[in-house]
């Protein structure tokens, strides 16, 4: 996608609103905001075409900080609002910012349905495994046993795997990245922005106040390479500080293998984002720390007509088969009579 010639080249600064950013110092949200502002100008799309929609939560303050159109709506409903907006004006580039509470707890159903419809939009799930704004209650991604304000003896709910759910909901684009891994974050965001359909991105985001270091294993430079594996299309799944470990299929299940001693990359699972069957993507989404390195990157990226595109097509088809609009005919309906 290249910028039309007459378009002024925008910079990250152009996308910054005049509002003071009000997250806690050290919050992972800052880094995500910075990357979004950085990649938007690279898309060659005028900024008035962007609409950021969010629900309620710390993360959901996001739209205020973007100098685009935006709506900071109500808790859990951003995706439904975004769907309406995109359907009503398919020309807009719609981004949704949501949290693990906003998007997976109260908003879980809208997530399921927006994704299955394949409405073109980017969904950024800021997953800090906690309710930040309401000050520290557990969320659907909080780990089993986690102690929070509402679980003094530990959470008894089993956490949801957001990517598994997205994949099960027929997602056409699914990815995961980490707030502090800014390069990777930027790449994933760019890919998501270019996807024609719903792009669902889970971002591990650190909440310094209520759930600090929840993702240390996946973000701390000194240990993360043993705990995550980068997914690259067409490449085998290799990870480890010395790139000496890999993921191999053992029958229908993945296993971690040490490379060397007769085990080489050719035996490893090769990542293919484009598989029609989502089962392998699902399997990858089940790989969790500490049993497995957690996959980072694009799990799945396939093409399917969008919801709003099909709707537009259907309107055109209706005009073809039902005739062009004629208000008087419409009002009269099929049967009239005349009184003189």
């Amino acid at each position, binding site marked *: 996608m290249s910028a039309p010639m007459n378009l002024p080249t925008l910079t990250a600064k152009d996308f910054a609103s005049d509002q003071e950013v009000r997250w806690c110092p050290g919050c992972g949200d800052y880094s995500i905001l910075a990357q979004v502002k950085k990649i938007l100008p690279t898309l060659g799309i005028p900024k*008035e075409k962007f609409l950021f929609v969010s629900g309620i939560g710390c993360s959901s303050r996001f739209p205020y900080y973007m100098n685009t159109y935006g709506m900071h709506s*109500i808790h859990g409903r951003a995706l439904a609002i975004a*769907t309406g907006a995109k359907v009503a004006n398919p020309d807009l580039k719609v981004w949704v910012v949501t949290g693990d509470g906003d998007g997976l707890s109260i908003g879980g159903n809208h997530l399921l349905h927006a994704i299955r419809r394949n409405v073109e939009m980017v969904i950024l799930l800021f997953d800090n495994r906690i309710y930040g704004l309401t000050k520290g209650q557990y969320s659907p991604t909080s780990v089993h046993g986690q102690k929070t304000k509402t679980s003094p003896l530990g959470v008894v709910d089993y956490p949801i795997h957001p990517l598994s759910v997205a994949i099960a909901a027929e997602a056409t684009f699914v990815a995961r990245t980490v707030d502090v891994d800014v390069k990777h974050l930027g790449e994933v965001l760019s890919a998501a922005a270019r996807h024609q359909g719903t792009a669902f991105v889970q971002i591990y985001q650190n909440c310094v106040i209520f759930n600090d270091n929840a993702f240390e294993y996946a973000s701390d430079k000194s240990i993360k390479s043993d705990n995550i594996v980068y997914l690259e299309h067409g490449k085998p799944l290799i990870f480890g500080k010395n790139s000496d470990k890999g993921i191999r299929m053992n029958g229908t299940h993945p296993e971690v293998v040490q490379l060397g001693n007769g085990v080489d990359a050719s035996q490893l699972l090769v990542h293919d984002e484009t598989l029609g069957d989502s089962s392998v993507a699902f399997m990858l989404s089940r790989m969790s720390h500490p049993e497995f390195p957690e996959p980072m990157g694009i799990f799945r990226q396939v093409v399917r007509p969008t919801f709003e595109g099909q709707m537009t097509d259907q309107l055109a088809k209706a005009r073809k088969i039902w005739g062009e609009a004629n208000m008087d005919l419409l009002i009269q309906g099929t049967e009239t*009579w005349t009184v003189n």
Partner: protein
Amino acid sequence: MIRTDSPTAPAKPVEHLEAVTIRFCGDSGDGMQLAGTQFTNTSALFGNDVSTLPDFPAEIRAPAGTLPGVSGFQIRFSSSPIHTPGDKLDALVAMNPAGLKTNIMDLKAGGLLIVNEDEFNPTNLKKANYANNPLDDGSLKSFQLHKIKISTLNKEALADTGLNAKAVDRCKNFFALGLVYWLYGRPVEATLRWIEDKFSKTPDVAQANAKTLRMGYYYGETTESFVVQYVVPTAKIEPGTYRRITGNEATALGFVTAARLANKELFLGSYPITPASTILEELNRFKHYGVKTFQAEDEIAAVTSSIGAAYVGALSITTTSGPGVALKGEGMGLAVMMELPLIIVDVQRGGPSTGLPTKTEQADLLMALFGRHGESPMPVIAARSPSDCYYAAIEASRIAVKYMTPVMLLTDGYLANGSEPWRVPHYADLPGIEIQHPLEKNSVDGYMPYKRDKNLSRPWALPGTPGLEHRVGGLEKADVHGNVSYDPDNHQHMINTRAQKVANVAQDIPPTEILGDAEGDLLIIGWGGTYGSITTAVEQCRSKGFKVSAVHLRYLNPLPPDLGEILRRFDRVLVPELNRGQLRLLLRAMYLVDAEGLNKVKGKPFLVSEIVEKIESMVRQEVSV
């Protein structure tokens, strides 16, 4: 008068009537809605004024022959203008014992009762909880009972069509319809045309239906049992082109029209619910008019998707019934806060909870006014008749975009499914709806999303417009520049401003029309779907010399500015409502008037007689001079 292209010319004495109320009833599978609709269309084409009241069970298809499975369709047709489908029945067609059981109490003494005798067998009688066969036990002796073996006659008529027994039996409603057509001197042509069209893909079925329709007609003509034929002459009706329309059809059309008048696309976010679903279904048939329908996953997604569509510039609506409104409260509050135009249609039904989902009620008024947290005022208007839903939809749209506010439009199950003839307007005659989307910054400091016009409305800048980027949301906003504000005085100011803006709608409300004298003993105030019954009752009482007048409200919030003054000109005020007194509560609070209530919560509209009786008990009759 029967037109000459009908099967035959009348051969029996003809009695002229001013109006007739007839009801078809039978099992859900008996095609009663169809028979009723055809009879209505024919009567309207014939030149009568008509009004209808369909009544179907909550079950899709309860077991055949049972009481809960009964489906009914009532039509009143008249040679003078009418507003209701009638109280008591002049005639009842009962296709089975269950139908008779659940409907006979509405038939006038001396009324015409046609029953399908074939169905009065022990099994069916038991299903209908009849210990004895009512056709034989004398219990129906106060009616003109006609026992007709409709099933048998239909079977005989179609013996040689080659259709199987089941298919043949399905045609019997047309036999009954044919008979009734003869009885009231209606032409069969319109129905014959409809049959041809409807069953064009199954010509054998078409032919069978057509045949049994005619046979029914001939049966009436030839049998000894019917000694007179009744004729209801054409009504003196305002000249014009007419169609028959139900409330939900009119609502759908009204919004398509409003969108076109406003030069907008129509967006509907909705989740199916009885009795609102047919608006969604209707609008799905108007995709060629640029209508975008979104069947959402639930009511919350319905209202919030509509908010998204409104923000980006659609004429945006959401349609539902009471339980759906209860779910949309938070979403509506967001629209109030963001000051976006949006119309919420509540087709009221029997509550609370799931209540009586297929029945009518007016018990959502206070929810419409107050069913949101915080101070979140919203204009509320109501439609008064099926065709009025069209104009109410347009008016709701106009208010929403002019005042940048969500608007609640109240209709009800009675209006939604009921129908009446409608003199259709010319599109070109309808006043346009003006909307200006800013294209330029409205201040030297940039675009101010909460800089208001003289009506206190904020501008509606659309995403995609360069330079007007701005953010809206549910947190309190500073006036003018629209940034989040926790300032106490700003909050007070915005609370007042939002309230004043809604109050400003009053400036558009025309002077209140009073039916009857502008002052007197008793003023009846109604709203919504009770219009027909109230108007008919008041006209009746006035013609008998009672000093009673009536006002029917379209605007429930704000109330008409002249209403307080009108109220003071009457000694007593009566508010008939299909609830426990919701408008009454409002009037009492607003005007400190000791308004009395006539309240009925039975899932049914008012009978005219119920209102008449109440009026007669309240005011004195003037001896006519």
